[in-house]
C-alpha cells in the first residue's frame, strides 16, 4: 500500500512541473505588450516602466522563469497588481468558499448520481430506468450558470425561500452556510450527477451479472444488502475513479457559479483578474486549481486502493 502511494506521488510530479510551466507561460501568449494591456491605454510611460519592473518583464525570459520557480519554492505566487496583496494570501482568503462549494457539489453529485444509477440498473429496461437516465441526460445538457439564474429567480425572487447569493462561513452559522450553499452547490452538481448516474448504471449492470452476486442471494441475503453491499461495493470502484475528474470539472464550473451567486471565492477572484488583466492572479489561480486537481486525483487513487483489496495487495 505504501509503495503504491509512493508510486502515485512520484508519477504526479512531472505533471505538476508541466502544470507550473503552463501557468507561467500564459502571459507569453498575450499578443503585444502585457504591461500596456494591463495598465490600459491611458497609462503614462513612467507608469508602464514601473509596472514592467514589478512584473519582472525587464529581465530576459529565462531569468523570469528561474525567478518564478524560486518564488514558488518559497510558496510565493507573486503580487496582485490590483489588490495590492500577495496572490497566495488573496487565494487562501477565498479558498474556503470555493472548496466548500466544490466539495458540497461533489457530495451531492456523487450521492444523487450513484443512487439514480443504482435505481436505473436494478430496474433496467423499465420506466424507472428510463426516467433516471433521462434525468441524467438532462442534467449534463443544461447550462449550469443559466440554471443558477433560473433557480435564483425561482427560489429567491418568486418564492423567497433562499438568499439570492452571498456566503456565510460554516463556522459562523452552519444553517446560514447550508442555505447559502444549497442552490449553488445543487446547480453545480447537476452535470456531474448525470455522469455519476451513467457510470454507476453501467457498472452495476456489469456487477449484477457476476457469480458472487448469485452467491450472496444463495446465502439468503435480502435484496437491499445484495444490491447495496455486495454489488455496489464492486460497482463503485470504477465510479470512484471519475470522482477526481468530476472534481476538476466542478472546480471549473465553480468559477462561473460563484459569479452567478455572488460567492466571494477563488473563481470570482480569477474572473475579476481576467477582466482586469491582473496576470499574477491569473497565473496563481490556474496553478492552484490545477494543483488541487492533481492532489484530489492522488487522493482518489488511494481511495481506489482502499476500495479494491486487489490493488492494495499489489495485484492487477
Amino acid at each position, binding site marked *: 500500500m505504501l509503495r503504491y502511494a509512493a508510486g502515485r506521488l512520484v508519477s504526479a510530479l512531472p*505533471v*505538476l512541473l*508541466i*502544470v507550473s510551466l*503552463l501557468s507561467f507561460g*500564459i*502571459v507569453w*501568449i*498575450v*499578443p503585444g505588450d502585457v504591461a500596456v494591456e494591463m495598465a490600459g491605454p491611458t497609462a503614462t510611460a513612467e507608469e508602464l516602466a514601473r509596472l514592467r519592473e514589478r512584473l519582472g518583464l525587464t529581465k530576459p525570459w529565462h531569468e523570469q522563469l528561474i525567478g518564478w520557480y524560486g518564488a514558488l519554492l518559497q510558496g510565493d505566487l507573486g503580487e496582485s497588481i490590483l489588490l495590492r496583496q500577495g496572490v497566495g494570501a488573496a487565494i487562501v482568503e477565498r479558498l474556503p468558499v470555493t472548496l466548500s462549494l466544490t466539495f458540497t457539489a461533489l457530495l451531492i453529485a456523487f450521492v444523487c448520481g450513484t443512487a439514480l444509477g443504482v435505481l436505473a440498473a436494478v430496474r433496467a429496461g423499465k420506466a424507472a430506468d428510463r426516467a433516471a437516465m433521462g434525468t441524467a*441526460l*438532462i442534467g*449534463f*445538457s*443544461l*447550462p449550469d*450558470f*443559466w*440554471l443558477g*439564474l*433560473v433557480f*435564483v*429567480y425561482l427560489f429567491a*425572487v418568486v418564492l423567497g425561500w433562499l438568499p439570492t447569493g452571498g456566503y456565510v462561513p460554516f463556522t459562523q452559522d452552519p444553517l446560514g452556510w447550508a442555505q447559502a450553499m444549497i442552490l449553488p452547490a445543487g446547480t453545480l452538481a447537476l452535470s*456531474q450527477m*448525470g*455522469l455519476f448516474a*451513467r*457510470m454507476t448504471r*453501467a*457498472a452495476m*449492470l456489469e456487477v449484477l451479472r457476476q457469480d458472487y452476486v448469485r452467491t450472496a442471494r444463495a446465502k439468503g441475503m435480502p435484496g437491499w444488502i445484495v444490491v447495496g453491499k455486495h454489488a455496489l461495493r464492486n460497482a463503485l470502484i*470504477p465510479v470512484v*475513479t*471519475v470522482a477526481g*475528474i*468530476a472534481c*476538476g*470539472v466542478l*472546480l*471549473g*464550473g465553480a*468559477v*462561473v457559479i460563484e*459569479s*452567478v451567486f455572488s460567492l466571494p471565492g477563488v*473563481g470570482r477572484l*480569477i*474572473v475579476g483578474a*481576467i*477582466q482586469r*488583466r491582473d496576470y499574477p492572479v*491569473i497565473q496563481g*489561480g*490556474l496553478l492552484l*486549481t*490545477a*494543483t488541487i*486537481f*492533481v492532489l484530489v486525483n492522488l487522493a482518489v487513487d488511494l481511495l481506489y486502493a482502499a476500495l479494491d483489496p486487489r490493488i492494495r495487495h499489489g495485484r492487477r
Partner: protein
Amino acid sequence: MAGVEALPAAAPAPRVKAPGALARLLAHPSFRWGLLLFGAVAVCGLLADWLAPYDPLRNNFRTRFQPPSETFWFGTDRFGRDILSRTLFGIQVSLRIGLGVALVTALVGGAIGAVAGFWRRADGPIMRVMDALMAFPAVLLAIALAAALGPSELNVIVALSIAYVPRTARVMRAGVLVVREFPFVEGARAIGASPTRVLLRHVLPNAMAPLVVQQTYVFALAVLAEAVLSFLGVGPPPPTPTLGGVIADGRDFIQEAPWISITPGVVIALVVLGLNLMGDGLRDALDPRLRTAIR
C-alpha cells in the same frame, strides 16, 4: 462532464460500413430524437437572416424591457433589442464555434493520440503534457486563454480547442492501442509496410469510431463552454449576439425581466441535449462495446 478518461481501452469497432451503420443509426431512437432537436435548432439558426423578425443589433429605446407579446414573441432587452432575433443569430455563433472546436480537436487531438498510441517512445512525454493540460479545469483554462488571446470568435475556438484537445487525444490513443495489436496490422508490418503507412492505412481507419462518438460530445461541451465564455465577457466581442451574452444581458434584470435570460438558455439546452442524444446513438450504432464505457 468529462468521462472519456474513464474509457478503459475502448475497443474500436470494425471499420464502419456506411449503409449498415447508417441504417442502424437512423433506427436508433436516441439518435433520431437528437437529430430532430439539434436539426430543428440548427435550421432556425442557419435561416436566421430570413426568420429573425428584427435586426438583432438595433437599439430602440421605446421598446425597452418589453415582456413577451405578439410583436416581440420572447420580449426585448434593456436596449429594446428583440430577444428572438438575437437568439437566432446567437445560434449561428454557437454552432460555428462548436463545430470549429470539434473539427480542430479531431484533427489535432486525433493526430496527437495516434502518435502517442502508435509510437511507444513518444507516448510517455505526450501523455504527461496531456495530463497536465487536463489538470486545468477545461472551462477555466479556456477562459484564461480566451482572455489572454483577446476577444474574437477565432480565439474562442483556439482557446476551447486547447482545453478539449486532451480528451480527444486520449480516446484516439486508446483506440490505436487496441487496433495496433490486431492481426491484420501485424500482417501489414510483417510484409514490410512503413510505420507511417501502417498507421494511416490500417490503424487509423479502424480506430475512427470512438473518435466520431467523442467529437459529438466535444461539440456539445464546446457549445456549453462558449456560452460560459460569452456570459463572462471573454467570448466573441460585442455587439455580436451570442447565447451566453444574451443570458448575461438579462442577468441584472432577472427580477424585472426574467424572459431575457430564459430563452437563450433553453436554446442552449436543446442544442446540447440534441448533440448528446446523437452521441449516444452514434456510440451504440458504431460500437456497441463502447456503451458501458463513455460518458
